């Protein structure tokens, strides 16, 4: 039984996915790393970026954190403010 998560896309991430929000289907109680892996499988262009981070509930998330249903998730490509 897969768990579905919607994920916000900003900057070049929106260009890659073609949408401001995407939905990924992951195993139950997935880790951030599972999300990254699935994202790269569906959108190999993420592998061409300098790097990308995942934000969980508006904070940078470690690969080992477990995603809960209802978490606010976002793809954070390399930032360039200032």
């Amino acid at each position, binding site marked *: 039984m897969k768990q579905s998560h919607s994920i916000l896309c900003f900057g*070049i991430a929106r260009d890659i996915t073609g949408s401001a929000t995407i939905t990924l289907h992951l195993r139950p109680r997935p880790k951030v790393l599972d999300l990254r892996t699935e994202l790269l499988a569906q959108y190999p262009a993420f592998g061409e970026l*300098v790097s990308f981070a995942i*934000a969980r509930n*508006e904070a940078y998330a470690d690969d080992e954190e477990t995603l809960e249903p209802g978490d606010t998730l976002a793809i954070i490509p390399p*930032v*360039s*403010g*200032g």
Partner: protein
Amino acid sequence: MSEIQLSPHPLSIDACYASVQDPTCGGICLFVGTIRNHNKGKSVTHLNFESYAPMAEKEMKRIADEAKSQHGLHAVSLHHRTGELAIGDIAVIIAVSSHHRAAAFAGCEQVIDELKKHVPIWKKEFLEDGSYWVGARP
């Protein structure tokens, strides 16, 4: 005290200065970042800043608070613009007040360095022949 603004409206140096000024402090250091007309030899016509606003505001607040406590500052103000900007427009203003001058310089430099590393804001540069997200690709 630390104060942050993420705003689609033009930024004011005087407003940022006023928010940290205090009669107990003798020195204020400011950093003003503006839009350059070139980047890596290419001619920039204008640009657009996109942000993940709620997270950007949290990161800005965290960075300002950390600089304040690490350097013993009196106050930190951090304003960042969003949306479309033209050459010469102000993208970011940081103002830091402190009893000690060296701490004001060190704290202000830390805030801009950390902002450029961590705050989820993305700059798209428009050239005469196209556009690209700055720093996204090697």
